[in-house]
């Protein structure tokens, strides 16, 4: 710490609720932020590469790796038989995900062996030389095909039920049924997966892993090595993006690197090429939603019976909780009187799908919004009216399908404010006028809301730890169980700590996440990073402060209430002391200046078997209005304007929160528009690089993009400084883009027919939807003509 800097006594620099830059921003822009592949390699470092299945489903009667072994620079070749512990990295504990496949492969691209060589290039070249014998078995890649083929479920399904669905559907005046197909999504973190294992004494190993979940990597490495967790240390300073793709998917690379490092007693690094990364690692689940909706003439939904079938891939991974979360969000902001929601986590011969920002929630919510859209078009009404008619609120209309009462509902106010600030009604009227006179270009606008449940639905994950040291000179070392992947978690937690100690932010050093400092951590996931780790860090600070107050009170004989942490100083009675000076005194008085903080979310519980509980501590809300233009000759489109109003409670860092919202919006827009995963008939994923898999560019972002925080919002629960989680909720705001595209399409049939635009709405899907409506209009005109003739 630079003690020569004069420190303010009136206000700290970088406390809570102020916009501060990302703690690594300076390093990012100068190229000096180190990612794992940038770390200096110790002498003797070897490099691993994986050999992949090129069949979607087959037995492997023969595996000839002689040419691989003989290849230049090769030091070792590993197969499943070389795994010293258990050949399994399934995070679900179902023992259904081998580190390296043995005897049988279940998807195209499944790792079968690993080659370790002197350089990465030599390892890569060698990996190509394997001769794998296959006996093909029938394969299924598509969700519907898996259901038709009676493929198994990868995990137990969930049912959420409330009321009497049969009676509710039967009694509803109007009814509609339909199917929606929702595509998956590749994370496309810019930094691909990487693991770097450095062997230690005895059974010890240290693994640098690009992971959101160091504790799980630690457990999996120990499991695969056949040792215990205290032998394994997992570290990560930062990731080049995660988005859920590094929650469980890091396990495989880490396990193989660690096995090789221990076997050869040399450091081993594994970093797949981008194409292989995209082939080997899981993605967002594709879904097929089947829905049956009972409603009335005013647009109020009476009953919803829906199933959510997901492409889970070959193993369970996180598909259970992902498909659960889809059901938890199928209601979005809407009350269903009678409801039955079931999940179908289908096995397929594809890579095992995994966590991705929203964790099934977006697919569930999109299914729910499709139902709203269908009701609106069936009644010839603006979908926004139907939304408002179904919002939670009012007597007996506040209970979710999982029997949690919605207590913090602010969606009405958010939608009302956004509708006004975006001038929604006037713009919609103008667009309808425009479309009447525009034969080729059609426009659309939509306002969609978001309500997203915050907490891991596996209740025990809702805990966190932090380790805070105050050194003799008053500088502070911060460590916590969360991982930094760009979201600014470290910055926010440091701000919390600065606020607690009332010191400037630059007093605090953020350090790499390591299982050796904070144990038994949960994944940095479910938007929970700041909620959990911020509270744990605050708890650690409070422990230290309690000791410091007791010390000062005793030493200076003042009541404890008269010891106060004020900006960069401590006030003790009438004395004012610089924070650093005070700490030095405390140290000399042998006060413990280090604390392990802990936090567990209160008041949550969930009984999966009965489908009842309070899985979510609170909900985060938001809404967006999107306007688009569509070329009805080609299906090409652009997003002309987006207005967002989003609830982050009392934001800890408004600039970072807005960054999360804008980024989530564009990422979610990509999911719903140009990002398409495409498997061929052989079960090969053919969109496995940025040349074929198209995430949004700068030129795809909305031409006008107004993002505002609901600055009046405050979390009604006592979260960290009354803020709310922000990572995932805004990801669902661009459902408004899909629906605006749908409106432009629906203009073809004068908004009387639901456009039923599936996701991703590529130009092809948009054009085909246009064609479907054109054909319906032509048929209607034809039959109208026939009628006139008759």
């Amino acid at each position, binding site marked *: 710490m630079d003690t020569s800097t004069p420190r303010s006594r009136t206000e700290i620099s970088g406390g809570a609720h102020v916009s501060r830059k990302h703690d690594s921003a300076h390093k990012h822009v100068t190229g*000096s932020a180190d990612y794992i592949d940038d770390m200096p390699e110790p002498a003797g470092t070897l490099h691993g590469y994986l050999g992949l299945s090129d069949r979607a489903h087959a037995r492997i009667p023969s595996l000839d790796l002689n040419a691989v072994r003989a290849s230049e620079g090769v030091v070792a070749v590993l197969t499943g038989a070389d795994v010293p512990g258990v050949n399994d990295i399934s995070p679900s504990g179902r023992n259904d995900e081998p580190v390296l496949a043995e005897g049988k492969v279940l998807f195209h691209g499944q790792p079968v062996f690993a080659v370790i060589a002197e350089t990465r290039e030599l390892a890569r070249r060698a990996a190509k030389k394997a001769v794998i014998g296959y006996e093909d078995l029938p394969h299924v890649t598509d969700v519907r095909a898996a259901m038709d083929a009676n493929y198994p479920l990868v995990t137990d399904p969930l049912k959420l039920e409330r009321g009497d669905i049969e009676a509710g559907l039967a009694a509803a005046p109007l009814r509609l049924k339909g199917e929606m197909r929702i595509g998956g999504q590749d994370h*496309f973190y*810019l930094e691909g997966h990487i693991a770097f294992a450095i062997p230690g004494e005895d059974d010890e190993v240290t693994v640098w892993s690009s992971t959101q979940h160091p504790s799980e990597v630690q457990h999996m490495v120990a499991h695969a090595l056949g040792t215990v967790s205290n032998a394994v240390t997992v570290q990560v300073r930062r990731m080049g993006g995660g988005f859920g793709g590094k929650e469980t998917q890091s396990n495989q690379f880490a396990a193989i690197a660690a096995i090789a490092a221990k076997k050869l007693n040399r450091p081993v690094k594994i970093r797949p090429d981008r194409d292989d990364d995209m082939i080997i690692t899981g993605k967002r689940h594709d879904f097929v939603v089947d829905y049956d909706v009972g409603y009335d003439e005013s647009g109020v939904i009476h009953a919803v019976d829906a199933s959510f079938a997901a492409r889970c891939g070959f193993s369970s991974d996180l598909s259970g909780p992902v498909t659960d979360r889809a059901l938890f969000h199928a209601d979005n902001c809407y009350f269903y009187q009678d409801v039955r929601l079931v999940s179908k986590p289908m096995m397929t011969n594809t890579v095992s799908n995994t966590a991705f920002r929203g964790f099934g929630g977006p697919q569930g919510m999109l299914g729910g919004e499709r139902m709203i859209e269908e009701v609106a078009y069936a009644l010839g009404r603006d979908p926004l009216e139907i939304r408002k008619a179904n919002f939670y609120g009012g007597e007996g209309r506040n209970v979710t399908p999982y029997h949690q009462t919605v207590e913090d509902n602010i969606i009405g106010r958010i939608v009302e404010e956004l509708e006004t600030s975006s001038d929604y009604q006037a713009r919609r009227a103008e667009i309808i006028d425009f479309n009447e006179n525009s034969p*080729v270009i059609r426009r659309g606008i939509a306002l969609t809301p978001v309500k997203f449940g915050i907490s891991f639905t596996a209740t025990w994950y809702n805990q966190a730890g932090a380790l805070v040291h105050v050194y003799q000179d008053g500088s502070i070392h911060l460590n916590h169980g969360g991982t930094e992947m760009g979201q600014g978690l470290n910055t926010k937690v440091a701000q919390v700590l600065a606020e607690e100690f009332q010191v400037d932010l630059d007093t605090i050093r953020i350090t790499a996440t390591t299982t050796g400092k904070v144990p038994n951590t949960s994944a940095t996931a479910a938007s929970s990073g700041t909620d959990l780790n911020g509270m744990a860090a605050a708890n650690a600070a409070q422990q230290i402060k309690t000791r410091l107050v007791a010390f000062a009170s005793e030493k200076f004989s003042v009541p404890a209430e008269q010891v106060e942490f004020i900006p960069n100083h401590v006030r003790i009675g009438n004395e004012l002391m610089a924070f650093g000076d005070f700490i030095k005194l405390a140290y000399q008085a042998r006060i413990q200046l280090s604390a392990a903080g802990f936090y567990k979310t209160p008041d949550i519980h969930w009984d999966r078997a009965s489908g009842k509980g309070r899985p979510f501590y609170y909900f985060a809300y938001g809404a967006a209005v999107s306007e688009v233009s569509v070329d009805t000759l080609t299906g090409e489109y652009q997003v002309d304007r987006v207005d967002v109003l989003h609830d982050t409670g009392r934001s800890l860092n408004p600039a970072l929160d807005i*960054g999360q919202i804008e980024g989530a919006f564009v990422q979610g827009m990509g999911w719903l528009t*140009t990002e398409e995963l495409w498997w061929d008939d052989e079960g090969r994923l*053919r969109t496995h690089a940025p*040349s074929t898999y198209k*995430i949004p560019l700068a030129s795809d972002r909305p031409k006008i993009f107004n993002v505002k925080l609901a600055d009046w919002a405050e979390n009604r629960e006592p979260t960290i400084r009354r803020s709310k989680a922000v990572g995932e909720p805004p990801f669902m705001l661009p459902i408004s883009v899909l629906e605006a595209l749908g409106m432009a399409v629906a203009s073809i049939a004068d908004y009387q027919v639901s456009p039923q635009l599936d996701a991703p709405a590529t130009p092809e899907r948009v054009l085909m939807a246009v064609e479907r409506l054109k054909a319906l209009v032509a048929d209607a005109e034809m039959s109208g003509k026939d009628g006139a003739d008759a």
Partner: protein
Amino acid sequence: MAHTHRTSIRFRLNDQTVELAGFAPDLTLLDWLRLDRRLTGTKEGCAEGDCGACTVLVGRIDNGLLSYETVNACIRLVGSLDATHVVTVEYLNRPDGELSAVQQAMVDNHGSQCGFCTPGIVASLHALWLAEPNPSEADIERQLQGNLCRCTGYEPIVKAAIAAAATLPDADNDRLVAAYDATTEALATFADGARVTIEHERGTTFVPGDLDDLAVLYEAHPKATIVAGSTDVGLWVTKHMRDIAPVIHIGHLEELKQISVDDAGITLGAGVSYTSARGALVSVFPQMAELWDRIGGEQVRNMGTVGGNIANGSPIGDTPPPLIALGASVTLRKGGNRRTLPLADFFIEYGKQDRQPGEFVESVFVPALEKDAFFAVYKISKRRDEDISALCGAFHVITDAEGVVTSARIAFGGMAGTPKRAQAAEAALTGRPWRWDTIQAARLALADDYQPLSDWRASADYRMLAAQNLVIRFFLESCGAPARIERHPALAEA
């Protein structure tokens, strides 16, 4: 012709002079920077020139002037760097060590989140900052087409680019400006016209001294891989680990970079990059502007060449459809012999072109548009920018005073195994009045011209339907009716 010979290449890396010999013919600039020089600020995101995390600046003297362009280091071969100045993110800060205008604006506007794309974005924006004192949003978007960011949604990055423009580059705030004269002098010294031969156990790299030397070398090594921008060959290396030796680099050859425009049309040397071609080409064919700005990203346009786009024979190359529709011809050279043929005839079938061993594409001639001609080219892709065509259609129709079509030349990419003319549709138009019913006939005739495939870019049904609808778009536009989404309408009005 006599040439001096060298066995090493010479270039500048940031503030150092580098002399390299004995490197592999497939050594990429990115691997060399990261593994050999330990300059790890430049990242590998995709190793195929699509994500831009590896973006660096390469300075080269062009017509006597030193200028810097962004390139993808991941697919740039080290052998192409003779007489250049390679600038990495580590050298983009100010001479006094403070953040550059671009870097500071990125920090101030929260333009980085995970930070992995950031060095590449900083490099791209730095190049824009040097070249364009007052960039529009359209300029910034175009500059960033080859830079993916998965965290920010780009909004703060675009704001940073605008904010950076408030500071103009000068010798005090930019190392490249400060060292401009010295670098120019150094590069001029390096470019001595010698043939460079680099031997390595994996094969030989040749850097010919001039065009005639290229002809000699290629005739002697007809199986060599000719590398201009390496936007395609780079992937043979990084993705397929294909043996490309021996390699002959041509990206530096002045004779292949010539552009000449006269009343007859425009001639482009085979080594003219998309970026270099843009000004002259768009001045003759303003209808090409949109397509041109949608070829790859800026880095790929800086590296890739029209000649390479033709020579590699891809059925989905962006330039052949419009060039065929315009009646372009291509000149091939082998040793001292040249021959010229219509571009349409160059593409024989998928993977096969009319090019003999040892023969290379030397230039392309595109005749100017006739009076009373309508011409347009439309690219359809899943993502608007930096995507490969699902299909690309070019239309060139001439009508007489009575409005009867006297000539129709239509070519599509993505509809067959080669870029191919739509002869049935052309026949349906020729000799017919330019009106709606004629258009409908041509539209239907496309089904006789093409049997497109289904793949991850588009289904066969979509390709056919969109191709047919493009005939309508062309007709509407020829009548002055709006038939396309307007980009940046607010900016266009301003």
